[in-house]
């Protein structure tokens, strides 16, 4: 659809130019007013790179939707977020004009993103020379469980660093077990209101310290109304216990199978859609089959395999044939119609229509219409048969929706 729209847009100038001479005699319209919005076609490529060149047409444009989000707000903020133990995401909010101004002041023509550990001082641990038009970057960092900050700036012609913006701190998550195996157990009765507890703690201790620690301090100070906290002696838990538990759950196992439920399911679903689409396209080759799915083409699915089985299809000659039967008719809207042994529902105008699968065999279809007052009745005894001889591999599958009732007129 998008391609179609783009083609129309691209052909518009041609039409305009073709029509221009006849119109020009009457109105003398300046040619520029007859041109479309699409840029004019680039000159045809030639030489060895020709087969890689884009076709000589206007680039595909999204249909115009107003309004659009701004490309930037120009706040000058540098946002830094740890995405995982070893990757940071940085974004700087500068408009194109702002970037152009700073790039012009930079000796390299572009900005530099510096990443520091703990504080924006000393030697940065990463220095990334970003593209002149870039406004974000994913930065690989060495340390998990570490505090990072970023600074955006540039080197001027004297190699002097000029800072434009600094970020707040972000902390990469740890990725290893803690060496600290000390155990502090505390009791916090579920029925105690946390807000009440915090009020008591805040009134007694001015410092902003975590609740559990504060409770411990208050108990040491003799507050009796607080919940009991107590340490468990380390003698109850040996290294043997620890090893035994580690055999049941450990980080190596977890790392081997990162289970993100929805996303895995979604990826599986997409893979299936793609396979189903391929199979359906190969199988039916019908106009509607192209409407089955709109699949993005750029998603790497190679590493994802479905636990729900997989569609496998060999490339070979194939043949599908099937038959369906539609029975339809009409009577008084308030009449009762039975087909076979079931009463059917009439449309408000008294008509009805039912579609039947028709496998091989002989079938009788008695139909009866009875008037609302029960005094009139009409009956029809419909008989059908189907017999198919298969030679070779012939399949039953969904069929061409254009097939009609198997009547002589339709067969002809």
């Amino acid at each position, binding site marked *: 659809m998008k391609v179609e729209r783009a083609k129309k847009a691209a052909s518009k100038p041609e039409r305009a130019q073709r029509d221009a001479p006849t119109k020009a005699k009457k109105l003398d319209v300046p040619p520029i007013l007859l041109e479309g919005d699409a840029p004019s076609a680039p000159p045809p490529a030639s030489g060895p790179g020709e087969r890689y060149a884009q076709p000589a047409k206007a680039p595909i444009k999204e249909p115009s939707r107003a309004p659009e*989000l701004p490309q*930037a*707000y120009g*706040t000058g903020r540098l*946002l830094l*977020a740890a*995405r*995982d133990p070893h990757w940071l*995401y940085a*974004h700087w909010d500068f408009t194109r004009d702002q970037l152009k101004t700073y790039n012009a002041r930079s000796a390299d023509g572009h900005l530099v993103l510096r990443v520091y550990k703990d504080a924006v001082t000393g030697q940065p641990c990463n220095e990334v020379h970003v593209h002149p038009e870039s406004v*974000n970057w*994913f930065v690989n960092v060495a340390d998990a469980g570490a505090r990072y900050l970023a600074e955006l700036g540039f080197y001027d012609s004297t190699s002097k660093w000029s800072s434009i913006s600094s970020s*707040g701190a972000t902390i990469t*998550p740890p*990725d290893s077990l*803690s060496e600290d*195996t000390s*155990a*502090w*157990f505390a*009791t*916090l009765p*579920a029925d105690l209101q*946390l807000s009440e*507890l915090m009020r008591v703690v805040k009134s007694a201790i001015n410092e902003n310290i*975590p*609740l*559990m620690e504060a*409770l411990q301090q208050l108990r040491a100070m003799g507050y009796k109304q607080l919940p009991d906290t107590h340490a468990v002696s380390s003698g109850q838990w040996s290294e043997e216990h620890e090893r035994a538990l*580690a055999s*049941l*759950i450990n*980080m190596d196992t977890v*790392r081997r199978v*990162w*289970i*993100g*439920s*929805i*996303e*895995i399911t979604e*990826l599986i*679903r997409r893979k299936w859609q793609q396979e*189903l689409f391929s199979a359906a396209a190969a199988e039916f080759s019908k106009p509607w089959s192209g409407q*089955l799915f709109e699949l993005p083409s750029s998603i790497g699915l190679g590493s994802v395999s*479905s*636990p729900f*089985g997989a*569609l496998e*299809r060999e490339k070979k000659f194939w043949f599908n044939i099937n038959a369906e039967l539609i029975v339809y008719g009409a009577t008084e809207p308030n009449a009762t119609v039975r087909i076979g042994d079931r009463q059917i*529902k009439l449309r408000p105008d008294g008509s009805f229509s*039912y*579609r*039947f*699968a028709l*496998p091989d065999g002989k*079938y009788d279809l008695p139909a009866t219409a009875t008037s609302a007052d029960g005094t009139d009745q009409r009956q029809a005894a419909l008989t059908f048969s189907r017999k198919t001889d298969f030679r070779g591999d012939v*399949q039953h599958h*969904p069929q061409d*929706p254009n097939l009609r009732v198997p009547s002589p007129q339709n067969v002809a």
Partner: protein
Amino acid sequence: MPAQGYLALILHAHLPFVRHPEHAKFLEENWLFEAITECYLPLVQIMDGWVRDGMDTRLTLTLSPTLCSMLLDPLLQSRYESHLNGLIELSEREIHRTYWDKNYQPLAWVYHHRFNSLRDTYRSYGRNIVGAFRKFQEAGKLEIITTAATHAVLPLLAEHPASIRAQILVARDHYHACFGTDPHGIWLPECAYTPQIEPFLQEAGIRWFLIDTHGVLLARPRPRYGVFAPIFTPNGLAAFGRDFDSATQVWSKQQGYPGDPRYRDFYRDIGFDLDFDYVKPYLPDPQTRSFTGIKYHSISGKGADKNIYDRQAALQAAADHAGHFLSARMTQIQSLSNIMDRPPLLVSPYDAELYGHWWYEGPEFLDYFVRKTVYDQNVLRLTTPWEFLRRSPTQQVASPSPSSWGEEGYWKVWLNENNQWIYPHLDVAAARMQELVAAFPKPAPLTERALKQAARELLLAQSSDWPFIMRTGTSPDYARQRIQDHILRFTQLYDQLKSGHIQEPILAAIESSDNIFPDINYRYWSP
């Protein structure tokens, strides 16, 4: 005989807020309709059965604020009932269509009975599924927990603590309005945890949350009992870690139950198989083939040549798997209780939509598993995290590790090359919301309405669903459009508030479309 250990089964029911009154039919509203038909109503039915049979069961269920809002919305309720009526009509037509095809007709009847039964249940609760679950909670069978207001990945809002606070407090308020009490637990969206969330959980009176396995294993100091006991964070909140074995048993490629060939195939649907004109009236988008919910084939069989679904065989598979799952948990509990000096706890969280939507027989699996657990053994007892904390108030103190249950364990799913472009917009909007609240300490009624709507638009833009969908590529255009719409509406309101010229008709139109959180407290964004 007392149980040797405990199992907390947790289902997370969440869908993004999708409501389009401007269209008579809207494709993405079908996410809700499919989930009601395949997951939520079947769950209500099996829980009704547990209550009817006087069973001592326990289950924990997140009902996200966005989901509750949609389930309670009169427009969507009405649309859902029309959708269900359509399914009943289609199944009726299928009974006729398959009159001579004795392989398929029994299945058409199965669907017909099922859809009618679901409609009966829906009507018996006055279309109020939220109320149905509230009844189970009040009966002590269910612990309902909340999640962030619009399911934002909270660690990615770390630059804006006011936004984290608002996501949590708005959710708490909404929970109170739905269930008449405050939540004890929260499902952190995507199980995404960072310690910066904790002060706001404390403020909301929330006592426990759930994190993925490595969030507990990598805690500081190292938790003695791994994920088999909760830990108290230094702030006094209990963190429960996901049990890895029970997760892999459902999800594993090799052992995962939903892949059994006897189960119903998800993809082979009459919406794709039958004449387009025939199925068209029952499709969510009449121009595009898609799922109707009537599927006649099992997973088995290679290629497109699937076997016909055998309902009895599939139910037997669900019973077999329930027995296997229970047996595996009993073995696990017995092994752990030999090592631990306290009864171990297994926490098994799943997306609620797995049970019924992706795994059609999931509700029956759940039913069989709970019944077997209650009647057939004494090794383990079902519990909820809150009940467990009441029973076991002494736990180790440790700081959990930032983590999520997404691919690779952190935030990559929601922050990557495909979706990073949304964060600059969310960043600016979050800062502007604080600016607005500070600028209007005593707003006039119209200004207050605009502030509330700006808050709603910001929350809706922050939903984790949009970057997730962009990542998976399932409906990327819709996700992009939603982000764009909410940011633009927010910006429009921001500009009008700043200029002092609020255009009431525009505001009213936005209010009518994005009508979530009618009583929202925008002051939660106070700087």
